[in-house]
């Protein structure tokens, strides 16, 4: 039976779903210190898709790749608890301040270093930026096909993958060859829970930096590290430094505005056929329905 090498791209993000008063700083950027750091929700949907492939093709491997500060190793462990086999943390000062372009460049360089892969799978977008750009950009940089807004992986054969996309007005089924990058919607199934035994097995897994923090003895720390979570810095990947971090990021935030959603005008209808007919006509003319 075919075995697939799967890479899941994931991001640790501030939990913007339950924001309080201090969630934004005065300059319009996210105040990360007051929000809990979580596994980006749509990346969890992506991980579930990866684990389902592994359920179906047991020899497959899942490696989670994330770029971020040292503490982002938390989501790699979280991934291991749920079913991933390994994690790679891409961390270096040189990556700091990356926009989507610099991020996708760094990720694609890291992926090139990983010898073989069949499927790269990630969430459609992260809840801190909502750009939905990184997935497609990684595919472009690697020169591989991409299927975005995936809801379900319908089938896998030796050389083909069939994927259902959820679009605004319906679904679309596409077929593609390997390697492929897939971005997953939040309409895909939720990720399975952490598994009790996997949690107990992997909770002591650390990156090199974390081991050194725990143990002052550098040698012991590196010997105790079992390399399930690897840590790569800028020197571990082949890349053009000019395209990394703040320097490699052309995105500039021009302005941040507070938007309050509210209905500007309202229409009062009586419960008679005439008014309802009028409303239906209006909705059809405006292409809201029909």
């Amino acid at each position, binding site marked *: 039976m075919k075995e697939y090498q799967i890479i899941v791209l994931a991001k640790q993000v501030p939990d913007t*779903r339950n924001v309080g008063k201090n969630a934004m700083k005065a300059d319009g950027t996210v105040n990360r210190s007051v929000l809990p750091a979580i596994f980006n929700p749509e990346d969890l949907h992506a991980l579930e898709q990866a684990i389902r492939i592994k359920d179906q093709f047991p020899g497959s491997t899942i490696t989670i790749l994330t770029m971020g500060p040292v503490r982002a190793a938390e989501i790699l462990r979280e991934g291991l608890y749920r079913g991933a086999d390994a994690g790679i943390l891409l961390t270096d000062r040189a990556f700091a301040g990356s926009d989507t372009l610099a991020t996708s460049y760094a990720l694609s360089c890291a992926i090139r270093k990983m010898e073989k892969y069949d499927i790269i799978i990630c969430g459609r977008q992260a809840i801190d930026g909502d750009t939905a750009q990184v997935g497609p950009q990684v595919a472009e940089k690697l020169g591989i096909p991409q299927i975005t807004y995936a809801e379900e992986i319908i089938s896998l054969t030796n050389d083909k993958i069939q994927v259902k996309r959820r679009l605004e007005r319906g679904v679309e089924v596409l077929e593609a060859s390997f390697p492929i990058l897939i971005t997953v919607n939040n309409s895909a199934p*939720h990720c399975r*829970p*952490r*598994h*009790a*035994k*996997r*949690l*107990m097995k992997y909770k002591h897994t650390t990156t090199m930096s974390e081991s050194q923090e725990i143990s002052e003895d550098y040698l012991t720390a590196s010997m105790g590290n079992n390399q399930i979570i690897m840590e790569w810095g800028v020197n571990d990947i082949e890349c053009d430094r000019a395209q990394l971090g703040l320097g490699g990021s052309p995105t500039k935030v021009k302005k941040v505005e507070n938007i309050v959603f509210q209905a500007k005008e309202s229409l009062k209808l009586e419960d008679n056929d005439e008014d309802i007919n009028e409303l239906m006509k209006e909705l059809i003319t405006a292409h809201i329905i029909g």
Partner: protein
Amino acid sequence: MANFFTDNPHLQFQLSHPLMQRIITLKEDHFKDKDEFDFAPKDFEDALDSYKQVLEIIGEISGDVIAPNAESVDHDGPLLKDGGVAYAKGTQENIDAVIKGGLMGITLPRKYDGLNFSTVPFIMGGEIVARADGGFANIWGLQDCAETINEFGSDDQKEHFLKRVSKGETMAMSLTEPDAGSDLQAVMLKAHFDEDKEMWFLNGVKRFITNGDAHISLVLARSEEGTKDGRGLSMFIHDKNSGGVTVRRIENKLGIKGSPTCELVFKDAPAELCGSRRLGLIKYVMALMNGARLGVAGQSVGISEAAYREALIYANKREQFGKPIIQFPAIYEMLGVMNAKLTASRCLLYETARFVDMYKTLAHISTERSLTKEEREEQKKYQKLADVFTPLAKGLISEFCNEIAYDALQIHGGSGFMKDYPIERIYRDARITTIYEGTTQLQVVAAIKGVTTGALLAQIEEYDKATIKPETESYRSILTSMTLEYEEAEARVTVHNNPEFVDFHARRLVEMAGNIIMGYLLLNDMQRDHSYWKTLEVFLRFARARNAGHFMFISHSNLNDLGKYKIEL
């Protein structure tokens, strides 16, 4: 994104009880599994951390999957399909989530793919699940049946059945029959040994079997022809895959509607004998029921927690006469007492679970090496405590649960009577807790022995000896005077040397002892966390008044009462 473990600091507080260190060290037998299993803990801190993190998984599944499904599960219920049970869609989703979380076989040894957790976190898991859905807590709790196989089954049976439980197969205990409810000695279901096939076969009917269509069932059956009492009963394991059992009916119930209550017909159903013949009721069912009773006590605390939270939210939100109703004394007084009963229930629940843990872990070690003299004494002490605390806890906590659910619905007013709020379902779910696994009246029959033998008083005196902070002495003096009152009440009842008179007042005496014990436990907890002082004060006011009422009743009662209360038709 709710987590029913992390949002409840009382649970984490119970987990940090000083006795946990000893329990875990015994359960892990000096952490000897660590070289053999990659998920086994290295030391006490590691194990306790695993307990917490695994409870977090249970909390997350409860908050995100089980609780949101509760309403539809209550509405849809299970269906009878081809002589079996088809769970409600939400129930199946819950089971799948629990299995994917690797949460079955929690207390089983690692060699049978279990997590080797102690009773405390298992019961806590049950509490958390019950808060999300009281009915689903049964399917969760029934994994405890595996403990009976682990304790009394053969090595082959353990190897064969326990690993399947750890993988997620569900369990049931088939005990009751149409004519054998509280009185299990009357069980009729027949077991006969076929000499040619060298196998046992079961024939008969079981009724009111929770999750009756489980993969693996423990069945109480009459193996000794011609016998009429409990000594003719043995315990069998029935594997659903062997066939021979059909579900004839699923009961239509008041509450816990998602939990299938089945009537089963056994027709030459092949089964394996578990343990020794004739010990089915007198030994194995007693062990099984003690586990189940503690489970129901945990379930009751979970349902109480759910009810209390619903009432608190509603009382804050609902405005009448220009302000939230929680600001009216009539309402905040109710909520204060509900909170006190809930917190006291939880103290008693985990105290009992710790006693069970202590004797069970020591008993388990005794199968591998001989215990030291001190250990043997310790085991005996805790076994006795567990025996008397289990019915006490089940009886009192399930009654509190119903009182809390009743008041929680009352706070909702007319809205609580409608199906628009969860409290209507929670109220119905609470009702069974005082009935199954032995009614409160039967728990009292067991717990009154703790009164008449002085076992409960001895434990109360033990609690009284603890060194406490000087500023909390006034609470202790209240408890001391309540104890004197209890002793006098007990003397006034037993002085007549009339068993019927003892039975007549048993409920009152058991409640009095229980209230005092819960008071001491709260006082104990307050030594570790001062913030419990308010709860303790409220509980003492309530408990003192209730005990004084019982004392008054008993003081003015004599043997003539027995005649006065009997109503003749």
